[in-house]
């Protein structure tokens, strides 16, 4: 049906196709990323309960640096070592500083996890409108054709309208997975953030000991 559609409809469909490909790329990537981060988090919380001291904790993850939770440990470890050179021993102020560093690291990690997720929201919002634009354009064409031909027979009008409606259909087909994925990933992101908060509290506790 698309072969006979006008250039505007073709352009609209092409744009929507690119949107769809990109949004699915993000969906697949985020799915993998979140799955990995969640698994890392579970493993981290298990090990931090088993491992008594902070020093041991830093050695556990040395082999696997690509890990959000390990980066929390690294950041706090760096802060501790820098404090130790200035004045050894943990004061209340020192703990507060480590807390801040952990907060910063968490927000960094959050940014990393949220990155490009907004594109899904954009796709979800704009794709139906782009499709609708193509449809409106196609229907305008059909009506102009009625005017030119002077016949309102369905045979003249219907194919143009059906071609036009394809654009909306593709727009919706692009938007619906994006909406679903966006909400799904937001939910998962919340879970991951909660795990990170827990991890930072655990780290503070082990440092305290």
């Amino acid at each position, binding site marked *: 049906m698309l072969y006979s559609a006008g250039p505007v409809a073709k352009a609209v469909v092409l744009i929507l196709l690119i949107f769809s490909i990109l949004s699915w790329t993000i969906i697949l990537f985020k799915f993998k990323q979140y799955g990995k981060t969640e698994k890392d988090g579970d493993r981290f919380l298990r090990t931090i309960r088993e491992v008594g001291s902070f020093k041991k904790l830093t050695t556990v993850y040395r082999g696997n640096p690509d890990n959000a939770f390990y980066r929390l440990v690294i950041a706090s470890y760096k802060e501790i070592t820098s404090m130790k050179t200035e004045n050894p021993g943990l004061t209340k102020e020192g703990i507060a500083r480590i807390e801040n560093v952990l907060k910063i690291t968490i927000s960094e990690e959050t940014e990393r996890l949220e990155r490009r997720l907004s594109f899904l929201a954009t796709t979800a919002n704009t794709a139906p409108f782009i499709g609708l634009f193509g449809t409106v354009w196609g229907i305008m064409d059909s009506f102009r054709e009625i005017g030119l031909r002077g016949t309102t027979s369905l045979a*003249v009008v219907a*194919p143009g309208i059906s071609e036009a409606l394809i654009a909306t259909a593709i727009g919706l087909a692009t938007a619906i997975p994006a909406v679903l994925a966006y909400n799904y990933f937001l939910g998962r992101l919340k879970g991951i953030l909660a795990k990170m908060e827990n991890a930072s509290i655990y780290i503070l506790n082990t440092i305290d000991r």
Partner: protein
Amino acid sequence: MREETWYKMLIVSTILHLVFLAAFSIPIKKSAKRIDLSSSYSVNLVGDMAGGIPGHGKGMPSGAEELKTPPLQQKTTHEKVTRPPSAKKRQAPVRQETKAVSLSKQKVPPKNDRHQAEGLTKDELSRLDRRISEMQRRTNYLDVTQMRAKAGDGGKGSGAQGYGLPISGQGTGRPLDLVSQKYIFDIWEKIKEAWGLPGSYSSKKNLESIVTIKIRKDGRIIDINFEKRSGNRLYDESILRAIRSIDPLPPVPPSFNSDTVELGFRFMPGDVS
């Protein structure tokens, strides 16, 4: 997650889309093919525009394209009534300015008495002979007149007679008078008027359908038959609808001299008014 996984995911996503698109486009193609297969109809012999219609007198090349359908596949029913089973048809639809095709039934009676009865001049007769031999050269089909003579058929079958739009005597063995020609031409004009197509079709030059309609004496269309389908369902449907919408036609002029008249038309996208 490292950035290189982005590329991986992009490729995966693209492949996913391509597979999806392919899955959607394959069944459409298949169904189009199926329509094509069911449409292998034959086309009857077509008259040539020798006399020309007044006010319509654009001459046309007599060298016509041949539709190479085996004559045995022809499915017009009353044909069996009007002619012996052994008789084969010659085919030579003519491409002309109006694109209307005459599908004549080749009701060729024994030549001599018929022609004399109709008072054809010698000139016309020799022209006819020339044309017949021309067509024989083009086609390997048997000479209908000879076959008929052997079969001893008088050619006065009770059924329908076939005419085409710009028919001169060739094929049917006698020329149509002006009234009949005008009648056929009027019908063609009516069909064209009723025929509507989406604008995008006017650029599709390769669509071509050949339709025969059978008209009763009072002008009622009693049969519409696709001799050749274009393969495009929408296109064929629009032709059917146009023909149905002009029913009933004005009564058949008495000059046709039979109970039913069969007319053939060729439809091309350029004909839409």
